[in-house]
């Protein structure tokens, strides 16, 4: 069993597991931090951005100044933003049988994989993951396509040039594989390859492996996966949460007894407590608004925003913010808000009970009804008429490189009354802000990452007790910035196996058993015997049938009836098939009893020519070093009996030999 690691990003994983005869891709996350190296795409022509000075090499060579611009000491690529794809060369991706999606954030690279690698398999995901994943992709495509940029920079990617560039451009990895965003057509085609699954549904892959999604508690429809055969179990844990937010709680019990547990998607901000971050978020928001400033919240169109809106719903009136408009601007804002209300069974218990009343599970329905929250597809159109300040705007993209957020950064950046509050943990806020410097606006960093922290992980591992843990290398050492915090790493026994991008791990795994079905007719014919208390044995001779990776044992065929007697030779003339195996024997022969039986006349019905089969009267027993020798003097037959062996030496008297053989077999156990 092997694990091919295609992504180096611990929260946006992409691994391929080869297990039995199947090739399973676990998630296909898209690393979007690469876009931080690019200039923002403004919705409205921005004089500031277009007048940024070009950057040239120290030797004064200015050929790069069309591609690279400088802003407050940072250098940016002036081009359509590009994303860092999972490794596509490590393994032939057309051999991937299935892709398992754990949550909507971890499927953003799907179109690249399904549309451009010869992939012909099936993708499995829950309905909320698909619907919200579609929204995220739609938003991304929309953000990038609506501001077409002619220029696509490539000179800087030249290795010889790249190493001359300032950090972080110099250190960017795999720049040659960076790709522009996919199209909506590719998104639709990719999503059409998805088959919907529900929690704890068992999906058979080629009869060899079964995969099962389990609730992971992180987002709507987010799942961990069990990949198992009858005797082996691999758990894939990706983006799980133990906090009670809106999704269904995490199913931990089903992860027990794993041979291998692959652990990805832990919190990116292990030192921040989500609850206190939400508190800070609310207080900073109200402070700014009360002072007459505007609040900008760069966010994804689904996920934490539901929780933030719920907090604000409870907070607005008590904080005296009821007159402040809240705007949610995204091409998929409406869809996201609507979809959240119909996935009742994917929600936590509290929210589920609401639908029995019947009430919408999320209170943002009421915020919309009372006009406190308004949503728009973009800043153009209705929004420009309704726009009132001061206000609170939720909009994307959290990287601050594209989307309506770019407009608000340009619009509000110059005033210190305004505040931008970062809640999404995927991008370091200082890097996100770099192309907007110098900035007068206040910047608050309240990253809300509800995924597992290291304390929760060690508790989880203690509880589910996997034999082996596999995780990204980042989790096996403290974060580089806090190298003294040895509590911020995975601590388990045996130590976790770590992987990095483009690595292949052999998982410590020995398969020993496979399931086989014994047909009822065969089962009926088995004769079990008790060897020890509680342990029984039965010898099985059966015909093995294997089809679609399923094995069945059927009773052996009855010996063929002799037909057309004349043509056939007598049975004894047939050369026996040496492949008919005889059972192994075990046990020992009690000599005394053996001899007694030999002496007694046989109980067989007297058959005329077997008349001589009466007891032997001339038996002599000699002791040897290891056992005994039984002599049938007249028959010139000698039987050596030892603890673990019996040797019958006789003349060519088949009748006698068979008789002795059967007597010996009577005393032995057959296997």
């Amino acid at each position, binding site marked *: 069993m092997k694990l091919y690691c295609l992504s180096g990003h611990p929260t946006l994983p992409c691994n391929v597991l080869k297990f039995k005869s199947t090739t399973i891709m676990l998630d296909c996350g898209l690393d979007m931090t690469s876009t931080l190296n690019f200039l923002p795409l403004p919705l409205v022509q921005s004089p500031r951005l277009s007048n940024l000075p070009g950057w040239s090499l120290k030797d004064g060579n200015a050929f790069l100044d069309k591609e690279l611009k400088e802003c407050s000491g940072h250098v940016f690529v002036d081009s359509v933003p590009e994303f860092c794809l999972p490794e596509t060369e490590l393994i032939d991706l057309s051999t991937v049988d299935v892709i398992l999606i754990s949550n909507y954030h971890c499927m953003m690279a799907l179109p690249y994989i399904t549309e451009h690698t010869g992939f012909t398999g099936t993708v499995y995901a829950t309905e909320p993951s698909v619907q919200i994943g579609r929204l995220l992709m739609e938003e991304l495509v929309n953000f990038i396509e609506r501001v077409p940029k002619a220029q696509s920079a490539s000179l800087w990617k030249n290795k010889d040039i790249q190493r001359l560039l300032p950090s972080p451009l110099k250190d960017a990895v795999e720049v040659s594989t960076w790709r522009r965003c996919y199209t909506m057509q590719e998104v639709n085609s990719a999503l059409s390859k998805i088959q919907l699954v529900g929690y704890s549904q068992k999906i058979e892959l080629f009869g060899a492996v079964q995969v099962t999604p389990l609730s992971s508690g992180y987002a709507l429809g987010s799942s961990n996966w069990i990949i198992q055969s009858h005797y082996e179990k691999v758990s894939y844990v990706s983006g799980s949460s133990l906090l009670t937010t809106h999704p269904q709680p995490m199913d931990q019990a089903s992860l027990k007894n794993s041979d291998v547990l692959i652990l990805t998607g832990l919190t990116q901000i292990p030192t921040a407590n989500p609850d206190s971050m939400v508190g800070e978020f609310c207080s900073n928001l109200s402070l700014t608004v009360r002072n007459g400033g505007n609040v900008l919240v760069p966010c994804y169109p689904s996920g934490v925003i539901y929780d933030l809106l719920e907090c604000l719903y409870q907070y607005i009136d008590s904080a005296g913010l009821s007159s402040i408009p809240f705007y949610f601007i995204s091409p998929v804002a409406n869809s996201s808000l609507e979809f959240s209300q119909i996935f*009742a*069974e994917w929600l936590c218990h509290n929210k589920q009970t609401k639908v029995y009343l019947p009430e919408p599970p999320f209170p943002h329905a009421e915020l919309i009804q009372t006009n406190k929250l308004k949503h728009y597809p973009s800043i153009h159109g209705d929004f420009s008429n309704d726009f009132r300040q001061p206000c609170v705007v939720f909009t994307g993209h959290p990287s601050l490189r594209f989307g309506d957020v770019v407009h608000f950064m340009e619009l509000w950046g110059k005033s210190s009354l305004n505040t931008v509050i970062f809640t999404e943990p995927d991008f370091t806020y200082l890097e996100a802000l770099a192309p907007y410097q110098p900035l007068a606006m206040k910047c608050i960093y309240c990253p809300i990452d509800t995924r597992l922290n290291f304390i929760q992980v060690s508790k989880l591992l203690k509880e589910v007790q996997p034999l082996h843990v596999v995780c990204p290398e980042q989790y096996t050492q403290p974060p580089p910035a806090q190298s003294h915090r040895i509590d911020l790493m995975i601590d388990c026994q045996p130590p976790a196996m770590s992987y990095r991008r483009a690595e292949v791990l052999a998982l410590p795994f020995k398969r020993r058993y496979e399931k086989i079905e014994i047909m009822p007719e065969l089962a009926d014919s088995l004769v079990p015997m008790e060897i020890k208390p509680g342990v029984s044995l039965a010898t099985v001779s059966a015909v093995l049938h294997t089809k679609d990776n399923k094995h069945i044992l059927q009773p052996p065929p009855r010996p063929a009836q002799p037909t057309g007697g004349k043509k056939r030779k007598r049975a004894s003339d047939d050369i026996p098939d040496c492949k008919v195996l005889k059972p*192994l024997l075990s046990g020992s022969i009690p000599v005394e009893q053996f001899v007694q039986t030999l002496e007694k006349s046989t109980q067989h019905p007297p058959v005329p020519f077997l008349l001589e089969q009466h007891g032997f009267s001339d038996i002599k027993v000699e002791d040897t070093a290891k056992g005994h020798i039984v002599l049938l003097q007249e028959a010139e037959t000698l039987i050596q009996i030892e603890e673990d062996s019996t040797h019958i030496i006789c003349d060519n008297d088949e009748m006698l030999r068979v008789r002795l053989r059967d007597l010996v077999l009577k005393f032995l156990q057959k296997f």
Partner: protein
Amino acid sequence: MPEIRVTPLGAGQDVGRSCILVSIAGKNVMLDCGMHMGFSDDRRFPDFSYITRSGRLTDFLDCVIISHFHLDHCGALPYFSEMVGYDGPIYMTQPTQAICPILLEDYRKIAVDKKVVEITKHIHDNRALRYVELLPLSGTVQEPQSTSNAFTPPLTHWLLSPCILIPSACETPGTSPLMLVDDELEIKAYYAGHVLGAAMFQIKVGSESVVYTGDYNMTPDRHLGAAWIDKCRPNLLITESTYATTIRDSKRCRERDFLKKVHETVERGGKVLIPVFALGRAQELCILLETFWERMDLKAPIYFSTGLTEKANHYYKLFIPWTNQKIRKTFVQRNMFEFKHVKAFDRAFADSPGPMVVFATPGMLHAGQSLQIFRKWAGNEKNMVIMPGYCVQGTVGHKILSGQRKLEMEGRQVLEVKMQVEYMSFSAHADAKGIMQLVGQAEPENVLLVHGEAKKMEFLKQKIEQEFRVSCYMPANGETVTLPTSPSIPVGISLGLLKRELAQGLLPDSKKPRLLHGTLIMKDSNFRLVSSEQALKELGLAEHQLRFTCRVHLHDTRKEQETAVRVYSHLKSVLKDHCVQHLPDGSVTVESILIQAAAHSEDPGTKVLLVSWTYQDEELGSYLTSLLKKGLPQAS
């Protein structure tokens, strides 16, 4: 012999009170827990004492599964859990769980109401309440103080706590979630399309399985998809058979007819009354009229009579994933259950002049608002009443459908019906064709019919037995059907043994069935099949070698070595398929059988061949001795 036992406690050759006991591989499952509306005495509920007379029910049943929210499938649940005292797991889908308490609560009010009616001698035919579709969901009935035959505990509270939800069984084929009741018992839900949240179930223990359909519909409609099932080949398929003998014409025709009739009546200024049940068909017909009104730009008002409808529509909005694909795809742009043309009805509207269409409950015109409106409009031949479902004998609906035009109302009044009476089947049950289709899809080994009339069942039973060549049963209530099963036994085979066998299976001469030989070790419930060697090793036993050495006397005057050579060439020519070798020490081997030639101690003209083999080579060894006994061919 393992067997599956099925006993209907209700719905055996009958419609109503669905309740079927299934015993499969030692697990007892109760399918549905319905009430019979035709009775007000004990017969209203299934006879649970059949399960156990003295013990606790919970000890006898592993779980209860409810297929959908109609009261003939879940109506006895409160009685079952509160009075009989079952507190084990109950499985149902989320919409069922959300909606069935409302129906139960409503029934409770009716039950009380009925008692009041009894006292005042204004009693309707009891059987009128047989179908849950009849239940008016109007909130107009007075809340009772206390009653003897109603369920006292607060129902909503009761229903929310002990049920286990079955995740959404999606309309899309291929997605059927699975629930594990315990280590052995699995439940799988399939989309049934009958009402919102209706599901069919596969109950599986090991390799034995039973599928129970509940009520289902094989044709998609405007708000629900069609039932589907995969080729799961259950031992038994328990299917409803309400329309065992009916084959309906195309749905499109029925819809067109319906719209035409409504349209014509409205055009001539008449009023249309459509008696319905508040959840289910009502939404379907509303969507139908709504789209028609929009397309034709009609102005006549459409009203919906009950206060609960809005609430009902709200459920539909929140349970969008359970509706059909089209609604799911478009709900963001337009939620199909937000009607523009359908408005709430007020009692006073009935007397307003001009055309209108009114949906009113209950569906069989036996009481409530639909009957009130009917009485007002019946006298005018311009008006029309359309009955969209089945009506039980004794109801006004049934009377007018059977052609009666003079109705005796209470107080010896006679109501003359001049309005047009139409019947349109919009029932969401599978018809005979649909049932056959489902049987064909699932490929069961046996079929068992419930939820239908005996006579019609008989017909369908014959048809199923003829077409699919499977046994078909139709037990009456309390009658047990026993099906012997022969489940295969799963065991673990050691990979070494399996691979060895598979590798040999690939050999070219593998035409003859090969025998796999191994030892099955049974320890507690753990069954493992291993090679005999491994079994011996695991049990710490030594192998006992059984060896035979046979002396074969040959007449041969030549030297021993030469005898050996002759033996070798003889065997080589006879045993073409075997490995025959002549070893340097003069001995001959056939496979692992050793043959040595020795001089006879007394007779120099005789040589003794010592043939030695182990028990594992018994057949070949025995064959060789008899072969050699016949002597060697003369050397040429």
